[in-house]
């Protein structure tokens, strides 16, 4: 057995890596391949080390999906070339490490937009496929992988394969939502959405309570390409589930004023200073978050047809770099689940329980999903999805979330692995019926266990 860690001036030591929630950090060797060959070499070496490797993008998964204790973590942001843009048919071929931010910068001026964007543009294409991310347009456009024509995958056996949904449906749909465990995605071909402007035309309305909110969303979601509701989970009694709905679409050219029309496709996201590195614990309590929620609910300017910058509509938090620091050293947990249509009573029960528990959550989001995609571990399915952030230090949180898991699983719902940092392993099979197929496929393509992650170890994926 080796001795204690070497003095700082010798061999590069493993560094602590954590997810966006900053809980459960573990140490791994961080490697940053600059070419496909380097990525292949790193994976080969990791396979021999016995503790494997996992690809990591911009580290926006909240839990331990892009961590690999004692092994290697491949920082894919070094592979960030856009290879080809077909501006006529709306296709882009790019490396997996390219961020959606960069794609927007490059593609918007050409009149194209990413097919799906989550609440942050700082995710990579590889991460978007691995987590099979969804956005505010899921009820119309499905999840990200639906728009992927092909991907280049470096599997655990050392092969680089061109995988398409037509030629290799198994491997493709295991990789879509497969949390990086079927191989290292090197590049992808993605279909784009044509837009005329970089502005959004948005309708904003308030809902007085959860039933009002669900009724409004169900009644006319289909009229909007993008739809989402911010929900106040601290409001109780008659106001339980009060919310602000924002829904809209890309603004057509004629919606713009004369000045804006001169440069309709300009992409100018603003950025605020980051919060300080050291933030005291316990800043976010029932009281402070309750006050914030009250303010947010009241300040919402209702109305229709208002123009908003794309970044304001899609990525409000990207304006504050490292916003995850506001939770302090203890970090935070994001809980996101989906419950099928017809089980609204379970959703009401969960919202009431979260409110009764007093979870200081100021970033809760409710949305309706459309049809799911075939990804074996893909999260979205038709139904209601709720996502909320909670400080990890909150007493009793672990037990509360376990109970909510039961409620979710009992009605055939599931939680989102890209957000997860605490699910019980036995829950997973109940939530993802194709888990056994996924395990079997991994064993086939990666017989020596070259690919693994903390998430995979924790949940026995």
């Amino acid at each position, binding site marked *: *057995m*080796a*001795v*204690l*860690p070497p003095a700082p001036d010798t061999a590069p*030591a*493993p*560094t*602590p890596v954590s997810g966006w*929630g900053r*809980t*459960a*950090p*573990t*140490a*791994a060797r961080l490697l940053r391949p600059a070419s496909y060959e380097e990525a292949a070499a790193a994976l080969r070496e990791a396979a021999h080390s016995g*503790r494997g490797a996992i690809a990591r993008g911009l580290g926006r998964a909240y*839990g*331990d999906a892009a961590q*690999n*204790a*004692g*092994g290697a973590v491949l920082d894919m942001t070094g592979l960030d070339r856009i290879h080809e843009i077909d501006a006529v048919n709306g296709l882009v071929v790019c490396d997996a490490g390219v961020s959606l931010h960069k794609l927007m910068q490059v593609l918007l001026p050409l009149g194209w937009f990413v097919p799906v964007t989550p609440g942050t543009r700082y995710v990579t294409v590889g991460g978007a496929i691995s987590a099979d991310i969804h956005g505010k347009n899921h009820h119309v456009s499905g999840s990200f992988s639906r728009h992927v024509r092909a991907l280049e995958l470096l599997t655990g056996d050392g092969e680089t394969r061109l995988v398409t949904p037509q030629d290799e449906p198994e491997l493709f749909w295991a990789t879509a939502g497969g949390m990086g465990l079927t191989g290292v995605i090197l590049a992808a071909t993605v279909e784009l959405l044509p837009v005329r402007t970089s502005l959004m035309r948005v309708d904003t309305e308030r809902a007085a309570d959860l039933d009002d909110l669900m009724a409004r969303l169900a009644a006319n979601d289909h009229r909007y390409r993008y739809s989402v509701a911010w929900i106040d989970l601290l409001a109780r009694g008659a106001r339980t589930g009060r919310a602000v709905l924002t829904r809209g679409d890309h603004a057509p050219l004629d919606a713009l004023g004369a000045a804006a029309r001169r440069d309709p496709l300009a992409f100018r996201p603003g950025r605020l200073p980051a919060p300080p590195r050291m933030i005291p614990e316990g800043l976010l309590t029932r009281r402070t978050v309750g006050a914030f929620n009250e303010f947010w609910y009241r300040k919402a300017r209702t109305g229709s047809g208002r123009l908003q910058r794309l970044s304001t509509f899609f990525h409000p938090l990207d304006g504050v770099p490292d916003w995850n620091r506001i939770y302090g*050293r*203890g*970090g935070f*947990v994001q809980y996101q689940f989906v419950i099928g249509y017809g089980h609204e009573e379970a959703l009401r029960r969960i919202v009431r329980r979260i409110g009764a528990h007093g979870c200081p959550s100021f970033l809760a989001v409710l949305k309706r999903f459309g049809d799911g995609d075939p990804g074996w571990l893909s999260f979205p399915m038709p139904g209601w999805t709720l996502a909320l952030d909670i400080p*990890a*230090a909150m007493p009793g*949180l*672990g037990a509360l979330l376990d109970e909510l898991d039961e409620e979710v699983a009992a009605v055939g719902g599931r939680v989102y692995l890209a957000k997860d*940092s*605490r*699910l*019980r392993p036995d829950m997973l099979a109940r939530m993802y019926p194709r888990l056994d197929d996924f395990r079997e496929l991994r064993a086939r393509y990666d017989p020596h266990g070259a690919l693994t992650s*903390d998430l995979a*170890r*924790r949940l026995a994926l």
Partner: protein
Amino acid sequence: MKDAFGAPQTLLLLGGTSEIGLATARRLIARRTRRVYLAGRPSPALEQAAQDLRALGAETMTVAFDALEPDTHEEVLGKVFADGDIDTVLLAFGVLGDQARDEQDPAAAARVAQTNYTGGVSAALVCGTALQHQGHGSLVVLSSVAGERARRSNFIYGSSKAGLDAFAQGLGDALHGCGVHVMVVRPGFVRTRMTEGRREAPMATTADAVAEAVEAGLRRRTEVVWVPAALRPVMAALRLMPRPLFRRLPL
């Protein structure tokens, strides 16, 4: 792997019959722990403890381990780690000795030091290195307030815990940034078999209270835990007390 709340899935308990250790194991099994290794000298009590944990739903193995034989630690504990990752190691073995008798029997006094300190150093080093290779895990070391300042009534035990406590803090610093978390736990007087029949000190606590504090410490990734928490300011004051005064305290 530990979850976001520091709850381990696998536990290695060094001192497999320790009441505090087993109380902690029961608490952790109620959360996420599914595999437990109880390391201790083979005995019916050790087997019984394993049986009890199995009844709670955890796969439990016993491991023949003797704190007084540091030469064997690497091999014995190495086998445990070879089985798979250990998320949390709880170093809970220790003996109180009998201060009055041990003052007359230097060999017996030395055994207290060898069990609590030397045995602890060796076992903690072996486990710390293994955790470092894993790149994750917590090493929880049971120290004692008795180590904070030596008292007339139990300075043999106290000095052994002082040594272990200092060692564990240093190990925690050595492993900082390696994904490994070392936590020192300093309980006051705990009502257990070990302290049965002794005069209770003020602010006495229970094994379950220590277990609860360990669980909370794992969640917060704390480095030093006092049980009860109020002992921290009390001991800070006692540390500063002049010797002539301290000596006269009925402690």
